[in-house]
């Protein structure tokens, strides 16, 4: 079963990657550089999703005080950090071609950079505390507090300040899809693929970490 899931995900992602490059570019004006849409947006999505999961596990830790939830929160943040770096780098490369500079502090770039800082601060806090209840509680509280700022970063900042970032590509003004049919299919296939990839990595990591916790408990 596990092996089948793995192969299924492998072929799914492979198909998405091939289609993303073989089919016509999603946006005519931007040409080939707009193909980043298929990879950059899912990365940014997983960045926020992973942090949401960290916040949820943190709440559960504070409620139940079980080490397992703390481990899972940290694990999800680790994966989120990887996707956050990927989203930042891919966006930056795209900005070089579309806007002429790798970095120009567009509100979206500011937001993703601050999300990166939140992840790094979370790990800085974890690193500065010895293992135990205090570390788990403090990092849970910090993750939840930091998550409260995410709506401001994602929804408020890019809408109050002028941004060059395409913002209505997926969901338009009237919440209708602005995408062509084929683009939409590839995009959502990619979004599903990236989400499943995150989920798979998370499950894999959780199994290892929980087993480690159990073996530590047995000794």
């Amino acid at each position: 079963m596990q092996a089948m899931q793995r192969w299924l995900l492998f072929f799914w992602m492979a198909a998405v990657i091939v289609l993303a490059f073989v089919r016509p570019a999603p946006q005519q004006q931007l040409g080939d550089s707009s193909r980043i849409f298929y990879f950059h947006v899912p990365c940014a999505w997983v960045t926020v999703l992973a942090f949401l999961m960290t916040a949820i596990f943190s709440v559960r830790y504070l409620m139940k005080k079980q080490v397992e939830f703390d481990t899972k929160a940290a694990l999800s943040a680790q994966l989120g950090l990887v996707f956050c770096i990927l989203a930042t780098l891919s966006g930056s490369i795209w900005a070089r071609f579309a806007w002429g500079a790798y970095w120009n502090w567009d509100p979206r770039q500011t937001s993703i950079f601050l999300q990166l800082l939140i992840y790094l601060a979370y790990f800085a806090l974890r690193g500065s505390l010895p293992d135990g209840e205090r570390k788990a509680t403090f990092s849970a509280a910090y993750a939840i507090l930091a998550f409260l700022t995410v709506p401001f970063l994602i929804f408020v900042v890019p809408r109050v300040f002028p941004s060059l970032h395409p913002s209505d590509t997926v969901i338009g003004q009237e919440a209708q899809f602005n995408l062509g049919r084929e683009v939409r299919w590839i995009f959502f296939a990619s979004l599903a693929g990236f989400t499943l990839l995150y989920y798979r990595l998370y499950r894999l990591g959780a199994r290892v970490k929980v087993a480690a916790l159990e073996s530590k408990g047995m000794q």
Partner: protein
Amino acid sequence: MSWAAETRSILKKELRSELRRRWSLGLLALFGLITVFVVSFSLKTSPLTSGILSTFFWVIVFFAAMAGLSRSFLKEEETKTVLALRLLARPSAVFWGKLFFNLFLLFFLELILVPLFFIWLNVSGTNLTGFFLVLFLGTLGLVAGTTLTAAIVAKSESKGVLFAILSFPILAPLLIFAMAGSKAAFAGGGWEEIAASVKTLISYTAVMGAGSSILFDFIWEV
């Protein structure tokens, strides 16, 4: 004792112990003075745009806050009075007492910062009502966002650096909007131009204040 009375007595205790060691308030004032001095001295009297003014202003306030606000909980760790405080008062009273005390510290600091900033940098043409509104709300937000991190940092290693590292990402939305609001105010802009900042600052402060006060109960007990 009621919650309000407990909060009041925590605040009173903080104020009293602070006034007993008047030099520590003086240190904070001096720190504020130095930061404004460095900025204005290096720029001499070259005219500054409203954007640069508001950036400098909030950078000064941010670092002064980083220097001053972590002390409220650190002090308890140093004098080993945490346990007594935990026994005597309920967590939420401690949180709000400390928060009001931090508010007092920051207002005190701004009392020195703001006049110096206006005089030394030759600021003119400012919409003062707008500026003070943004300053007031920004200060509330700063305190709402940092009281919890101060409590976390007090029990961690490498406290000073960690406080700034933990607080900055949380304060970033606040700083972005406070800078935008005071930029408009420095340029003499009216209500329409600062309204978006003011509204966001209010919602930020409400969200952070509520969130921190709930989370504080958990971290105060461990």
